[in-house]
């Protein structure tokens, strides 16, 4: 009995120590940044809180995600909307074509980009089961105080670690928003930009931006190779 108590005590104090160190390290680094940019919430806290909220949502959504995916997408989108700058993200994907696009085309692309990203993300999440998500404390002072990179590690139960880097920037109100992400060394923003550019030059679309925008969701849903395995629905079809 006594032994159990001491081990529990030992664990608690050890955890307390770890959290304390991380906190003090991030605070020490944060102090340097805070003088340059005043923000209520650090980008690391923002990413950590959002990923906690998303993980909590997956737990709840397990029952209905299969039957009512639209509801699941809506809920994921509601969590991502305040923290992802879809407009800047979409603009950097359209890149040179953004200048030639009409305001209506731009708006339509931002919408289509947003729902495409949310769907891809939500689908990937349903696959995610017993893994662990860790947001690493900031490791170095940013070069530009208005832009930072937040490193997150996704650890699967099999021991694989996937680093995800979020590029965050401060908007006019001082809130940190995600503008790009680098998954396992692959810069998604640049990959999308390359895809959009190839599609815009593809004779199939004849340089018609409207048609590229219409097909955008299909273009990126083909993209992540791991997602084909998500098809839990396929065996059911056969049965």
């Amino acid at each position, binding site marked *: 009995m006594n032994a159990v108590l001491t081990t529990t005590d030992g664990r608690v104090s050890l955890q307390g120590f770890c959290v304390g160190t991380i906190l003090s390290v991030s605070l020490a680094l944060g102090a340097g940044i805070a003088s340059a940019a005043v923000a209520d919430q650090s980008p690391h806290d923002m990413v950590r809180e959002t990923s906690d909220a998303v993980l909590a949502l997956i737990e709840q959504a397990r029952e209905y995600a299969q039957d009512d995916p639209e509801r699941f997408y809506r809920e994921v989108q509601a969590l991502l909307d305040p923290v992802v700058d879809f407009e800047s993200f979409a603009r*950097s994907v359209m890149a040179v074509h953004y200048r030639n696009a009409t305001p209506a085309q731009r708006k339509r692309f931002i919408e289509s980009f947003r729902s495409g990203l949310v769907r891809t993300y939500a689908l990937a999440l349903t696959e995610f089961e017993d893994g662990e998500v860790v947001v690493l404390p900031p490791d170095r002072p940013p070069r530009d105080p208005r*832009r930072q990179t937040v490193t997150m590690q996704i650890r699967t139960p099999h021991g*694989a670690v996937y680093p995800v880097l979020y590029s965050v920037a401060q908007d006019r109100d001082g809130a940190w928003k995600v503008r790009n992400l*680098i998954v396992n*060394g692959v810069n998604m923003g640049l990959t999308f930009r390359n895809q959009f*550019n190839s599609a815009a030059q593809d004779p199939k679309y004849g340089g018609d931006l409207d048609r590229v925008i219409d097909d955008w969701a299909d273009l990126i849903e083909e993209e992540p190779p791991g997602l084909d395995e998500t098809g839990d629905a396929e065996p059911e079809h056969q049965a």
Partner: protein
Amino acid sequence: MQMRTIEIGVGAFVLAGFLALVVLVVQVSGVSLVLAPTNSHRVMAEFDDVAGLRVRSKVSMAGVTIGRVASIDVDPLYGVAIVEMEIYERSWPLPIDTGARILTEGILGARYIGLMPGGDDEMLEDGGYIQDTQGALVLENLIGDLVTRLGAS
């Protein structure tokens, strides 16, 4: 006398052969020997891996050479490579959201930097940093990744 002309001829032929070899090596390595025009602008970029990129490697946009690598440094504290590029005057300015990727040219695998123009109205300053970069994809890392993925499934 005729012996002599033949010997000189053979010598010249061998020399020309060596010269051709040198030209070939320089061409294949993707290193440009042409001096940069005096009017060039500096742009910096950080990469997580530059594998095989060298000083004087090409910097291109849409396949057109628009500059070259001026210097490559490493930040030993954080393990990132810092690449300084010279961009020729005729291709300046570049939008601030220009992206930089390290690409491979041909089957011999000379590395170069490919720039992708962005859509921002704001332009990069001389000496400014490119935010969006994609480092070289190293074969060993990809294999390592595959092995853990196979092990998992």
